[in-house]
C-alpha cells in the first residue's frame, strides 16, 4: 500500500466505517462489536505503518483542491502520526473494553457508531493541515461527545451533555473568529503556508479560547467533571485519551510548529495553566465521586502539558509530548478502572467504598501503576514527561510559574493516594465484589503494563519526540 493510501485509510476508514455500523448491527451484535474493534485497530495500524516513513524525514500529503484556499489537505508528519498513534491506540483498547462493559446497556449500535465516528474525526483533526477542515472535524467531535455524554438519556445526563456541547462549541466559535482573522490577514488557512508567520494577539487569544474549552482548562474546565455522567468508556475516551488531547494537539500544531505570537501570549497561557492545575488539583482533593475526581485530575494534568507546550523550548516541548503519551495511557487506565468499580460496586462515593485490594487485586495493582505514572514516580513512564516539562520551564525562567506547578505536583500525589486509600485499602464497607469481566481486566492491565514499559523503554518515544521537535518546532530555543 502506498503511503498516501495509508494516510487516506487512517482518516476515511473510521469515518466511513462508522456510517456502516448501523447496517452491520443488523447481522449480529458480535459482528458489530468485532467490526467496530477492527476499525479501531486498522486505524491504528495505518498510522503505525506511516511511522517509519515520517521517521525517515518524509512528509506525506494528500490534497483535494477546494476554491478560496480551502483545500482539503491531509499531511502525515512526525507530530500528526505521533498523536494519531496515541489516540487510535487508546481508542482501540477502549473499544475492546466496551465489549464487556457495554454488554448490558441499550442503544449500543449508536454507541459504537459514535465512538468510531469520533475516532475518525479525531484522525481528521490530527492529519488536517488546513485550519478550516480542522474546525469541521473539531465540531464533528463535539457532536459525537454530545451524544455520548448524554448516552443514558436521563434528565440530568441530557443537561450535562448540553453543557458539554455548549461550552466547547462556544470556544470553537471563538476559535473560528480567530481563524477568520488569520484568513483575512494572510489570505490562507493552510498551516504549511503559514509556517513561521506571526499572527495578531487577538486572533491568538480567540484560538486559545477554543483550545481551552476543548482541553478543559480554566475558565472553561467545569464541563469535564460534569460529563462524568456518561458511561465510563466514554469518559475514558473523552476525558483521558482523545477529546481533551485535541486542544493540546491544536496548541502544539498551531503555536508550537506553525505560527508565532508575541511572548506575552505564552506567558498568559502559562499562568492560566498553572491556576488551572492548582485549582482542579485542590478540587480533586475534596471530591468524593470517583469519576469526577479523575476528571479533575485530568484538568490538572492538562495544565502540565500546557506548561510544556508554552515554555517555548525544545526540552519542554518534548516533555509535553511525552506527557501526552504517558498521561493518555495512564488516565485511560484510571477511567476504565473506575468503570469496573462502577459496575461491580454501586456507590460512586469513594468514602463508601474500601478494602477492594483483597477481592480485586488485578484492578488494584493496575490502578496503582496508572496512578504512579500520573504522580510521575519512576520507574513508571510519567516520570520522564514531568521531569522534562520542569526542566523546560526552568529554561523559560519564571520561578513563580515553577512554584505553582510544583505545588500542583504535590497535590497530585495527595489526591491520588487518598483515592487509592479510600477505595482499595481500609475496611470493606459492603459485600466484597469480584473482579470485572476478562475483556475489561485485560484492557486495564494492558494500560498499566504499558505505563510500566514506557518507563523501561523510554528511549524510543524520547528518540522520536526529540527528532520531531528539532524538525518541526518553530522558534523553540
Amino acid at each position, binding site marked *: 500500500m502506498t503511503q498516501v493510501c495509508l494516510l487516506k485509510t487512517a482518516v476515511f476508514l473510521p469515518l466511513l466505517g462508522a456510517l456502516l455500523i448501523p447496517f452491520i448491527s443488523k447481522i449480529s451484535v458480535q459482528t458489530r462489536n468485532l467490526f467496530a474493534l477492527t476499525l479501531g485497530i486498522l486505524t491504528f495500524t495505518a498510522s503505525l505503518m506511516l511511522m517509519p516513513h515520517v521517521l525517515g524525514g518524509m512528509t506525506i500529503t494528500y490534497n483535494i483542491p477546494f476554491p478560496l484556499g480551502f483545500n482539503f489537505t491531509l499531511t502525515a508528519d512526525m507530530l500528526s502520526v505521533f498523536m494519531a498513534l496515541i489516540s487510535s491506540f487508546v481508542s482501540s483498547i477502549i473499544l475492546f473494553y466496551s465489549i464487556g462493559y457495554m454488554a448490558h446497556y441499550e442503544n449500543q449500535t449508536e454507541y459504537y457508531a459514535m465512538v468510531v465516528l469520533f475516532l475518525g474525526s479525531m484522525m481528521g483533526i490530527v492529519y488536517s493541515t488546513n485550519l478550516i477542515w480542522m474546525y469541521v472535524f473539531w465540531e464533528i467531535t463535539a457532536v459525537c461527545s454530545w451524544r455520548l455524554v448524554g448516552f443514558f438519556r436521563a434528565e440530568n445526563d441530557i443537561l450535562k451533555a448540553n453543557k458539554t456541547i455548549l*461550552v466547547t462549541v462556544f470556544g470553537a466559535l471563538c476559535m473560528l473568529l480567530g481563524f477568520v482573522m488569520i484568513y483575512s490577514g494572510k489570505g490562507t488557512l493552510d498551516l504549511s503556508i503559514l509556517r513561521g508567520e506571526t499572527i495578531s494577539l487577538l486572533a491568538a487569544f480567540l484560538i486559545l479560547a477554543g483550545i481551552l474549552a476543548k482541553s478543559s482548562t480554566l475558565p472553561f474546565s*467545569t464541563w469535564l467533571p460534569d460529563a462524568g455522567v456518561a458511561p465510563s468508556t466514554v469518559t475514558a475516551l473523552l476525558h483521558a485519551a482523545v477529546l481533551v488531547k485535541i486542544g493540546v494537539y491544536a496548541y502544539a500544531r498551531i503555536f508550537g510548529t506553525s505560527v508565532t505570537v508575541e511572548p506575552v501570549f505564552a506567558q498568559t497561557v502559562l499562568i492560566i495553566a498553572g491556576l488551572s492545575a492548582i*485549582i482542579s488539583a485542590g478540587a480533586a482533593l*475534596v471530591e468524593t465521586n470517583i469519576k469526577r475526581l479523575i476528571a479533575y485530575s485530568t484538568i490538572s494534568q492538562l495544565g502540565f502539558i500546557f506548561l510544556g507546550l508554552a515554555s517555548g523550548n525544545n526540552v519542554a516541548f518534548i516533555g509535553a509530548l511525552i506527557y501526552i503519551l504517558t498521561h493518555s495511557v495512564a488516565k485511560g487506565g484510571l477511567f476504565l478502572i473506575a468503570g469496573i468499580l462502577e459496575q461491580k460496586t454501586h456507590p460512586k462515593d469513594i468514602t463508601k467504598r474500601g478494602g477492594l485490594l483483597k477481592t480485586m487485586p488485578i484492578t488494584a495493582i493496575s490502578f496503582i501503576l496508572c496512578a504512579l505514572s500520573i*504522580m510521575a514516580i519512576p*520507574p513508571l513512564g510519567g516520570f520522564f514527561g514531568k521531569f522534562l516539562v520542569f526542566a523546560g520551564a*526552568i529554561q523559560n525562567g519564571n520561578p513563580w510559574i515553577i512554584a505553582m506547578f510544583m505545588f500542583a505536583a504535590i497535590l497530585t500525589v495527595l489526591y491520588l493516594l487518598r483515592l487509592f*486509600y479510600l477505595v482499595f485499602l481500609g475496611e470493606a464497607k459492603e459485600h466484597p465484589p469480584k473482579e470485572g469481566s476478562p475483556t475489561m481486566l485485560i484492557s486495564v492491565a494492558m494500560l498499566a503494563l504499558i505505563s510500566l514499559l514506557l518507563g523501561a523503554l523510554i528511549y524510543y518515544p*524520547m528518540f522520536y519526540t526529540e527528532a520531531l521537535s528539532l524538525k518541526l518546532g518553530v522558534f523553540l530555543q
Partner: protein
Amino acid sequence: MNIILIPIFLPLIMAFLILFISEKTKYIKELTAIVTTLIALMASIAMFGGALEFSLPWAGYGADFKLKTDNLNIVILTASSFFSFLIAVYSFGFMRKKTASTKWFNFNLLITQAFSAGAILSDNLLLLLFFWEGLLIFLYAFIALSNENRNSKATAMKAFIINAATDLCLVLGIAITGYLAGTLNMSEINASGKLTMHGWAIGGYLLLMIAAISKTGAMPFHTWIPDAGKNSNVNFMAYIPAAMDKILGVYFLIRISVYLYQLNGGMQIMLMTIGAATLLFAVMMALVQTDYKKLLSYHAVSQAGYMILGIGTLHPIGIAGGLFHMLNNAIYKSCLFLTAGSVERQTKTTDIRKLGGLIKNMPLTGLFFIIAALSISGVAPFSGFFSKELIYKGTLLTGHKVFFFIAVIGSILTLASFLKLGHAVFFGKRPETLKETQEAPFSMLAPMLALAGLCAAFGFGAKLPVKFFLEPSLTFLSLEHTLPLSGFHFDKLFFISVIAALIALISHILGYKTFSKPSKASDHIHHAPGLKQIYSMAEHKFFDIYEQAMSFTPLLGKCLMAADNFFDFLTDRLPSLVINSLSKISQKFHTGSYPLYMALTIIGFALYMVFVLGGTK
C-alpha cells in the same frame, strides 16, 4: 557482561523471580535473597580501586544510562550491599515468627538494593533521580506490608508523601543543575568547574540539599521515622532508616556540596545549623521515649544531624568525619535495631517499662547492645568516638564554637538515653513473666555479631576505615588535609568526651535515684519546667510539618473547590441567567399585539434615522 551491572540488575531480576516462588516454600525465598545480595556485595568489593564505566543511550538530551565507579561511590556501594546482605541473613530468622509476607519482604529488599546501587553508581543525574525516586514505591511497600494493622498503612502514606515532596525538590534541583551546567553527567560538571553560588544556582543547590537531608532523615523531614519505628518491623528500621537512607543521603550530600557546587560561608552556616538542630532536638526526644524501637528511631534522626554537621563544615576533616560517622552509624544503629528485634521476638514487647534484667537470658544480645551503645555514644575506643572526634575537630576548625558545644551536649544526652535504655532492658529487676526468655537464634545473632565486631574493628584508632574508605574518598574529592585522620590522641577532645560521659552518668544516677525505675531515669529532664511544655507540644505532633500540613489540606481543598465552583458559575450559571433574562425581556414585547409591533418598528426606524443622520454631520 560488565561487572558494574551486577549489583543493579542481578537483584532486580531475582526480585521478580522471588514473586513466582510459592509463599508456602520454606527457605528458597530467603536463600535466594541471601545469595543474591552476597553476590552483589562481592561484585562491589571486586570493583574497588578501578574506574569502570558503562554507558548506553537512554532518555535523550544528554541523559545517557551512564554508570561510573570512583573511589567515593564504591565505598558507598559496598556499604549498602553489605547491609542488604546482613538484613537478608537476619530476616531468615526474624521473619519465621511473623505474619507479614516473607515473599514481599525479600522482593522489597532486593529491589531496594538494586535501586540504591543504581542511584549510587549513576554518573548521570537523571538516572540517579530515576533510581532514587523509584525507591519511593518500595519504601511504601516495605512499611505498608510490614504489619497487618491499619497504622502501618497510615505511616506508609506519611513516609511516601514526605519523601515524594522532597523528591520533587530533587527533580527541580536536578533540572536546574543540568540547565546551569549544560550537562547532566556529574563527572563532566565537576571537570568543567563546579557551580558557584549565585542566581539560580542557590535555588538549585538548596533543592538538592533538601532532598539529600530529607533522605538522611534530618529535621523537619524526619517525622515518619519515629512513626515507622512504632508501626513497622525492625528489619525495615535496621535496613532503611538506619542504613540505606543515611548511606544515600550522605553520599548525595557530599556529592552536591563538594563535587558539584562550590559552597560559600552562608551555606556552610545553614548546613551546620540544620545539623546541630537535628542532632539536639532529636536526641532530646529520644531521651524521653519508653519504647525500644521508637527511642532508636529518634536516634536515627539525631545521628543524621552529626553527619550533616560534619559535612556542613566544608572542611576536609569534618567531611571525612561526616562520611565516617555515616558508616559507623549504619553499623551500630542497625545492630541496635537488630537487638530490639531479638528482644521483641523473644519477649513479644518493646515497651521498656515491661522489660528488665534480660542480660541473664540473652547474654549475647546484651553484649552486642552494649558494644553498639558505647559506640553510638562516642565512648572510646569504639568506632563512634573516632568519627565524632573528626566532626568535633571540623567544627572547631571553622571557628564557630557554638556548633561544637551543641554537638557535645548531643553526645551527653545520647549516652544518657542509652544508659536508660540499657539499664531498663538488660539490667535492673527482671519481671517474673520474662523468666523463661530464650536467647535469639543463630541466624539473628550472626549479623549482630558481625556488626558489633565492626564497631570494634572501626574503633581502636580507626586505622582500617581511614586507609580503605576515607583517604581514597578524600583524594577523589581532591580535599587535602594535614591533620591525621586515624590514631588515638590524648588531647583536649578526649578529656571533653570523658567529662561528657561523666555528666551523662551523673544525670542517669540522679534520675534513677529520684524515680527509682530505670525506665524513668530521664523524667527529671522530661518534667523540667519549661521543657515539659515543649515536650507536651512535641508529643501532640505540634512540630510535625506533615501533620500540620495535613490538617490544613482539607481547608485548602475546599477553598480551591470554591474557586472551581466560581468558574463553573461564570461558564454555566451566569450565561444561562443572562440569556434567560434577556429572552424574558424580549418575550414581553411579543404579545401578539399588532399595534405594539407597528409602534416598535416606527420607533426603531426613527432611532435608526437619527443615528444615520447624526453620523453624517
